[in-house]
């Protein structure tokens, strides 16, 4: 391919790419999310990731100015690919074209194709024009969403004021506003009311239950970035500090290697695990210093023990629907301050993180034996050292952390490309049972980074240009008791996935996953609980194909078998058919799914990603027997105004009630709809 043709292609992509790529964008989001996640809370907001991807689509990353954090936030580049790219730029000079990426070690055609919509090479970086268009310096986005479950749920009809009940309506409202001035000043405002939460009135005079605001300013003298309001910090491998979304092991080789993005504005609707206050990143020669301070109010359950108020639990759901949830809202104050110092020189990066957390009340570890070594107190100091170094095609990384007065945690690994077609990832983690952390999120089976030792190894092999094979094996043990297991335990997690890709047309994925864990069980002839092996095998075949510019189809079959030792084996399966349609002028897009599922129990449940309105995420769990369908559409009403509508329905066979407790619905159906408007100017 000659140079002129390359430039021609580049211009073609940059001029006409956006509309053509809108569908591909959604497909890529789905692909990445399904590679990174296998099971997730249904209501979790993934917009932190999807919003960033959309942002890069409108404001492509300049390959000649970008850095490791920015490229890492794309979430589909391996750290050693990023290191190779930056190394290539340092040694060969600025990129002339995006297509030059193919000359970088570790970048094959598929990776370059994936990157194309998100990156650019500006002709003259010195002009520093906003990428969205000449003369336009400030962009505004306003998005409003409404949704609700259509059927009536028990929690809304309880008259007895002594009982738990939902105090608000089943309606869900959310509002997002974004202002972006030349990518230098960004303002984000979020407001949300969940179903069941009061909206205005005596119980919620401020209207929405949750408000969030962040103002981010870039390139302020020696300060790379300053954020006022809500912000997230991510450093090292997450052993000390990792706010926002954290992905664990997944069907992508890079998923076990975290790529920290440092300081960023927090723009998610998830109402937990972020910092609220002030932070900035100061650049001094090879050092980046990020001091931070935060003061936040948390939802905690406060009990009085021996005349002292203690916190028995802190809620992370962000839900304030019932009298007790409302009473607990803002009951605990949390003051956080600290700093991160990062040193960079060529391929080496060293970081030191210190964070001090103070609570208004004593956090209790509880009486259960499994919590014997858990955190208890009003204050916690965490210190961590992290490193990364790339040498040729190998990327070494790790972090060691200490909670002052208690234990240590350490994680170390490497990711290497032994051959253009073969990459290997190896990682060791060692979290002591008395290592305490408030904001840690790292690779592991347990959500808290403690009481776990494990070895993870995986490889990615490109058998042919069209076939990729990913495997990982994670073997771990818990030296102390853990949730639902009254003894030390061990387990393993194995995944194998083969992907066949039709260039720009479709893909076929075959996935197998095997997990072995342990859990308490009781036997008739024994008086005490004993541990039983718990095995779960999962197989999946997933097919997507673009029939033409307007139509695309997707099909999946998935089966699960689950067995707990001494108990009967349980089975589950699910199949679905998706249909995607785009009008010839791209003004309307629509998709729908029809799924049938049949599982013996919740244990044999199956998760599947669903397409949703922009920035909403749907990752429902399919269990019992029945049908599920949804319809999702987007209409571009004008150039500035977009509209979305989504309706979903689950119909269970042989069921007289759906759900339980306050969420109980009489009948065998559960349906939900949401509408959304977005106006940009």
């Amino acid at each position: 391919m000659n140079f002129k043709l390359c430039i021609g292609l580049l211009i073609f992509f940059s001029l006409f790419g956006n509309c053509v790529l809108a569908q591909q964008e959604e497909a890529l989001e789905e692909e990445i999310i399904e590679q990174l996640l296998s099971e997730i809370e249904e209501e979790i907001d993934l917009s932190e990731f999807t919003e960033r991807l959309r942002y890069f689509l409108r404001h492509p990353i300049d390959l000649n100015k970008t850095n490791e954090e920015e490229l890492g936030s794309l979430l589909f580049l391996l750290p050693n690919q990023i290191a190779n790219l930056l190394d290539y730029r340092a040694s060969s000079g600025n990129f002339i074209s995006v297509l030059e990426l193919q000359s970088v070690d570790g970048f094959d055609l598929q990776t370059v194709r994936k990157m194309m919509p998100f990156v650019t090479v500006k002709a003259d970086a010195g002009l520093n024009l906003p990428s969205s268009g000449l003369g336009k310096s400030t962009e505004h986005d306003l998005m409003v969403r409404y949704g609700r479950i259509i059927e009536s749920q028990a929690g809304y009809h309880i008259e007895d004021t002594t009982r738990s009940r939902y105090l608000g309506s089943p309606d869900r409202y959310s509002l997002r506003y974004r202002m972006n001035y030349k990518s230098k000043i960004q303002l984000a405002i979020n407001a949300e009311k969940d179903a069941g939460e009061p909206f205005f009135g005596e119980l919620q005079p401020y209207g929405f239950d949750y408000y969030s605001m962040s103002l981010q300013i870039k390139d302020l003298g020696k300060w790379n970035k300053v954020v006022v309001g809500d912000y997230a910090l991510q450093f090292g491998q997450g052993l000390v500090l990792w706010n926002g979304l954290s992905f664990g092991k997944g069907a992508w080789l890079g998923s076990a290697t975290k790529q920290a993005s440092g300081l960023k504005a927090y723009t998610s609707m998830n109402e937990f695990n972020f910092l609220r206050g002030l932070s900035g990143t100061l650049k001094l020669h090879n050092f980046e210093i990020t001091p931070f301070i935060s003061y936040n109010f948390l939802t905690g359950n406060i009990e009085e023990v021996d005349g002292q108020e203690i916190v028995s639990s802190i809620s992370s759901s962000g839900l304030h629907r019932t009298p007790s949830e409302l009473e607990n809202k803002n009951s605990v104050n949390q003051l956080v301050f600290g700093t991160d110092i990062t040193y960079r020189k060529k391929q080496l990066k060293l970081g030191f993180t210190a964070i001090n957390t103070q609570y208004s009340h004593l956090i209790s570890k509880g009486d259960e034996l499994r919590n014997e070594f858990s955190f208890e107190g009003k204050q916690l100091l965490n210190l961590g050292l992290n490193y990364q170094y790339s040498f040729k095609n190998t990327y070494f990384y790790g972090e060691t952390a200490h909670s002052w007065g208690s234990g240590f945690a350490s994680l170390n690994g490497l990711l290497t490309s032994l051959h253009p077609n073969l990459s290997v990832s190896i990682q060791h983690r060692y979290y002591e049972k008395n290592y305490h952390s408030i904001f840690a999120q790292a690779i592991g089976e347990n959500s808290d980074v403690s009481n776990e030792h494990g070895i993870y190894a995986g490889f990615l092999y490109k058998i042919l240009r069209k076939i990729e094979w990913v495997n990982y094996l994670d073997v771990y043990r818990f030296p102390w008791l853990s949730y639902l297991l009254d003894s030390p335990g061990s387990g393993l997690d194995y995944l194998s996935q083969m992907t066949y890709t039709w260039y720009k047309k479709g893909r076929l994925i075959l996935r197998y996953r095997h997990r072995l864990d342990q859990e308490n069980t009781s036997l008739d002839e024994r008086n005490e609980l004993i541990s039983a092996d718990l095995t779960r095998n999962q197989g999946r075949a997933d097919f997507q194909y673009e029939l033409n510019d307007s139509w695309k189809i997707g099909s999946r079959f998935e089966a699960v078998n689950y067995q707990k030792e001494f108990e009967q084996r349980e089975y589950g399966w699910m199949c679905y058919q998706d249909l995607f349609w785009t009008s010839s002028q791209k003004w309307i897009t629509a998709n729908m799914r029809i799924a049938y599922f049949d599982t013996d129990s919740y244990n044999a449940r199956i998760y599947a990603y669903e397409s949703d309105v922009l920035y909403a995420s749907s990752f429902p769990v399919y269990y019992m027997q029945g049908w599920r369908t949804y319809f999702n559409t987007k209409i571009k009403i004008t150039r500035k105004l977009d509209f979305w509508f989504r309706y979903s329905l689950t119909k269970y066979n042989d069921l007289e009630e759906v759900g339980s407790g306050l969420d109980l619905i009489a009948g065998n159906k559960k349906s939900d709809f949401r509408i959304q408007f977005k106006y940009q100017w």
Partner: protein
Amino acid sequence: MIRLFILVIITFELSAQEYVPAKYASSGSQGIADSGIYTLAGNPAGVSRINRPQLALGYQQHFLGTDIQSQALFFAMPIKAQGGLGLLIENYGIPEVTSLIKSGFTFSKYFGKQINASLSINYHQYHVESYTTSKSWSADLGFQYLFEKVQLGAVFKNISGSTFSNEIPEAIDQEIAFGALYYLSDEIQVLAELSNDFDSSIKYSAGLAYKIHKQIILRGGASSLPVEFHAGAGILVKKFIVDVASSFHTQLGSSPQLAIAYEF
């Protein structure tokens, strides 16, 4: 003594008696599809095409902190226009308490450029100090098929189903195993194997060998039954090849081992 005996029984059950040389233990395999002196332990058909006599010694400490050890001596030599001869003597046990000795004599022959086959006759002796001694014989068959970049192997161990006498609780494993070795490049070999002893589930293993330097090879892999990771390295120093390896069991810890081979 009883406690020691129970320990022996448990550990024998836990880790098969078959000695796996460091070269293969480091990638979790047995070397079913490979060639060279160490295949005498996995698939002796692999000595069909050796060019010069070779001698090797191996030692393994089973899970650090226990006294359970394996020692092995290998010898292989070519037979002109025929194939190769091999001798393997291996011992597994706790010194001065128990030992399980296997001595095997192998005749291996190649057919054309692609086929290797072998027959091994083995003598087994099981001894527990101040308790019992038992002896038995067995035979193994090995087979390999070689393509340009891929080698396939199969072995059937203890074809006659020999056992020790009835009073001895120790069995002589009867096992069938298949393996594949793929030369992904000049530097990288990929190994995958599966085996079954007709008594438990199929055992799977897969590993990689990567020549990081013309004298150094790094290896790693994983295997099932029990699930373990493996890692190791091979270093060529003049006519000596030193292989080190260890397996890593999440609860029992590591089992380091060392082997040295010399080519005459």
